[in-house]
């Protein structure tokens, strides 16, 4: 691809473009299947067996089993598709989004109530905002990690 991808220099973000879409095709189509109640039941009963019905990579399956959404995104998942897994487990969008920051649910909710994450330092890779790679994971997890 010789096309510009100007979004590559934004920190903490994956843009779902054609390349990601190709990588994540089966992962995302698996997620779509969870829009049927009977499939959600089957998936919850035996996640591994259900996943094995799909031609996904082992890494993709593991990311789903671990509910590691950052990993699932890197492997081609799209958040609107992945949200169906969260819904199946009874998780809200806020819980899912928060899980990608390393913050606890309470920490993330408190950040949102205080007006959300600031844009300052988070526009370009190489700045010093809290979404930059050098500051992950965030919240309590980050403080523990740096000890």
């Amino acid at each position, binding site marked *: 691809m010789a096309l510009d991808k*100007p*979004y590559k220099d*934004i*920190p*903490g*973000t*994956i*843009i*779902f*473009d*054609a390349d990601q*879409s190709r990588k994540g*095709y089966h992962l*995302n*189509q698996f*997620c*779509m299947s*969870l*829009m*049927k*109640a009977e499939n*959600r039941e089957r998936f919850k009963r035996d996640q591994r067996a259900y996943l094995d019905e799909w031609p996904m990579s082992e890494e993709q399956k593991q990311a789903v089993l671990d509910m590691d*959404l*950052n990993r699932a*995104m890197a492997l081609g998942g*799209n*958040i*609107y*598709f992945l*949200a*169906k897994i*969260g*819904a*199946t487990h009874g998780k*809200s*969008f*806020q819980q*899912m*989004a*928060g899980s*990608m*920051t*390393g913050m606890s649910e309470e920490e*993330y909710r408190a*950040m*949102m*109530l205080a*007006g*959300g*994450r600031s*844009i300052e330092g*988070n*526009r*370009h890779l190489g700045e010093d905002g809290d*979404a930059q*790679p050098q*500051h*992950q*994971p*965030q919240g309590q997890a980050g403080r523990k990690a740096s000890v």
Partner: protein
Amino acid sequence: MAKITASVYTSHVPAIGAAIDLGKTQEPYWQPLFKGYEFSKQWMKDNKPDVIFLVYNDHATAFSLDMIPTFAIGTAAQFLPADEGFGPRPVPKVIGHPDLASHIAHSVIQQDFDLTIVNKMEVDHGLTVPLSLMCGQPDAWPCPVIPFAVNVVQYPVPSGQRCFNLGKAIRKAVESYDQDLKVQIWGTGGMSHQLQGPRAGLINKEFDNAFLDRLIADPQGQASVPHIDYVREAGSEGVELVMWLIARGAMDDVAGNAANSIATHAGSVRVRHRFYHVPASNTAVGHLILENI
């Protein structure tokens, strides 16, 4: 002759739908948000349209990765609320307006917009949450709705300028329909939000309010802002805001045909309501009502 009487702009956060459906609107977390829509519900009663042309995006509900239409117009007689993973929302089914929708499709395709015509689809929170916010919890929605879905899931999404020009083409299509109908056009989605990655939770109040100012006063200028600015400043999902430009492009003060990107002032527009609130779940909520006068 049909006429666009007003445009409505609002975020369509799924958690807002859940708050309404679960009776939480008076909880401290939600109360300030719903207060911002009290005016709007009364305004809807006082200004009941005959049809709502509702611009939204599908969130991997009706459209999987098998087919991704850039622009899709719903021409069916009805559209059922979808099961997005928690079961369908307990809201009325959406009654379409096949005749007007087909007319608009016919006209807009001939104005060089390459629509996909959809005769069967379910609609998700992108469409039903705005209806709930504006109409509350009625047994039936107040009028037929034409769903118009824009791809903002897989990049590249249509540009702000393309959306704005599409709005102009829709206005022309509506005005060539021979029944006397009052049509509202709604633009939904946004405002700043990012749902993924370590940057999740981004909110940019300055960007959002500047967007609202400019959408009102200089929509052509706002239309020329590239995607990357939305993604960088308003979050990866903030790009949904381009959909507001479709509704804005259909208003009276934006003249000229779709191929002509220069707006001249042909009529005027009044701001009836403006509201902004943070947060709803991960998202900044913005809301505007503009009337043609």
